[in-house]
């Protein structure tokens, strides 16, 4: 890996509720290098988006970072005061949300919002910022940007709005972009365009990307490495080729096995039996053990630590001591 842009160590995110403290993220560690795209996958509620929000410092109360550390470059950012963290948001970490239709303020022109972002983080004049905004719109592939810059969000289609959102995320040339389900709300035909665009921009700017999604197609298409999350923990993390083609963790295997293929003639789709435990009822030991086909005694009592197997890190007792197995 080239220089590390983001490094998360043993992150814990907790939500204080009336019924006690819920741990949404429990011991997550990951790194993203310059120009690298890390895919984060998992079922709904696995903690993918919360991880993204934690990195950019947007966990809303009653949630809070309860442990671990987040480093951007060499600087620790999880314990910064709010005003310092605000300066990092947008400037050094950009974010793209799921729904481009609601991400833009409907009352302001697209250009006003881009210029506002640029001028918050740089001391460019209004005129230079506007020129830069037009450049950004050109870069994300908006046709006739000189004219479109004065359009309101509702005058853009969903795909075009997501391009505007990407332009906004890139406005101050951040080192890291957190893309939280950037294609989920888009038409399938537009999804591929947006992913291609994101990929190209990151390669050109050397921006690192944390790509949160539940779409394995998007991961296979765009990501360099992938982290599979389950119940707020990372089950397996490694290069896409290994994790997608030869998953080691039984949950990752189940997840990959559940992707339908066109050649499949089976009547029923494959699924993992059971459902992910609620945050209030995470089982002891390995969180996945009640649904795991390979479960054995140790899984029920001892929580597996991530171990390096081949090119991936797997949190599963199957690989402990014996190295490659099962």
């Amino acid at each position, binding site marked *: 890996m080239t220089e590390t842009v983001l490094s998360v160590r043993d992150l814990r995110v907790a939500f204080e509720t009336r019924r006690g403290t819920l741990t949404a993220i429990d011991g997550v560690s990951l790194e993203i290098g310059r120009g690298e795209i890390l895919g984060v996958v998992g079922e709904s509620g696995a903690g993918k988006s919360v991880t993204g929000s934690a990195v950019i410092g947007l966990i809303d109360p009653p949630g809070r970072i309860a442990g671990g550390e987040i480093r951007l470059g060499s600087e620790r950012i999880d314990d910064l005061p709010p005003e310092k963290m605000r300066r990092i948001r947008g400037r050094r970490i950009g974010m793209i949300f799921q729904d481009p239709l609601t*991400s833009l303020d409907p009352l302001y022109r697209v250009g006003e919002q881009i210029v506002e972002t640029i001028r*918050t983080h740089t001391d460019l004049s209004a005129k230079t910022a506007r020129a830069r905004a037009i450049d950004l719109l050109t870069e994300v592939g908006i046709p006739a940007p000189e004219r479109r810059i004065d359009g309101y969000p509702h005058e853009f289609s969903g795909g075009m709005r997501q391009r505007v959102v990407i332009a906004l995320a890139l406005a101050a040339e951040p080192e890291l972009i957190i893309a939280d389900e950037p294609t989920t709300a888009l038409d399938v035909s537009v999804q591929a365009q947006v992913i291609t665009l994101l990929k190209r921009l990151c390669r050109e700017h050397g921006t690192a990307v944390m790509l949160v999604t539940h779409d394995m197609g998007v991961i296979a298409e765009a990501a360099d490495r992938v982290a599979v999350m389950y119940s707020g923990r990372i089950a397996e993390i490694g290069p896409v080729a290994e994790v997608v083609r030869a998953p080691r963790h039984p949950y990752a295997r189940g997840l990959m096995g559940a992707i339908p293929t066109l050649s499949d003639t089976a009547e029923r789709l494959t699924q993992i039996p059971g459902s992910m435990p609620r945050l209030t009822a995470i089982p002891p030991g390995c969180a996945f053990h009640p649904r795991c086909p390979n479960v054995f005694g140790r899984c029920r009592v001892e929580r597996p630590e991530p171990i390096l197997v081949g090119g991936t890190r797997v949190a599963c007792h199957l690989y402990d001591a014996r190295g490659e197995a099962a």
Partner: protein
Amino acid sequence: MLAFLIRRLAQAAVVLAVVGLIAFAMFRFAGDPVNQIVGPDTPVSERAEIRKSLGLDDPVLLQFGRYAGNVLRGDFGISYQFRQPVTTLLAERMPATLELAFCATLFALSVGILMGVYCALRRETFLAKLFQAISLVGVSLPTFLIGILLIFLFSVTLGWLPSYGRGDTVRIGGWTTGFLTVSGLKALILPSITLGLFQMTLIMRLVRAEMLEVLRTDYIRFARARGLTTRAIHFGHALKNTLVPVITIAGLQLGSVIAFSIITETVFQWPGMGLLFVQAVQNVDIPIMSAYLLLVAAIFVTINLVVDLLYTVVDPRLRTSVGRTA
């Protein structure tokens, strides 16, 4: 836009014509006007003469036509009790009511929006909860009671402010104003608060609820992710979006401020149109009652129109859709 305006004006004309019909019907069905003019011992022949001279023998439609024609020329007839043209009486009283309504609305809007924004942004503070409690009182206490309580506290007990009347007024052309003298301004304070309190609490609760809603939207989250300053997010984006629905309600409330000034004017013996109307009801002075009815209807219709136009100024989405349908 022009077609929209013309359509709305046509609607307004229909509304006013219907109200005019009701106002006219009052003459015929709320007792015999001749009885109001003459004494109980007037001979029948004299009554018939008066009836004839006033045109009360003519067919109903002709009478309505004549009435409508007069109204369009600004002639609402002669007041039974004052023996003066109603138009003159209303014109004399109008400045007092309009100045009171203006101050009450100003009070309601400024204090209501400020308190609403504060309650939304500092939801958990003691002051916000206090405002909430006070607003409940404002919504539930009837206007006359608030007026009397204020008089008791500030006029009777503390002796700071006058309990009735307009104080000294200055005549400018046909308009008498209380804005230019100290006693005129002092006299405005209590009635304005009394009249505006209900609207103020309504606007406060509306602003608070709307703003909390807006603060939860994706574009506010995205604005935070862009690293904008808290001030820009709260006042540039959140407040502006909050005010879109508030404008409608506030505008319509302005109409009811004028219409319901009747009660406040009675409590404070404010020499405005409302007080004139109450006196007219007591003396069955139908020309004044029907003129007042028409006037209030005209004010409501005008305000509705202005609010619709304001809407399109604030919200660009309406601007284009209106333009398209037009």
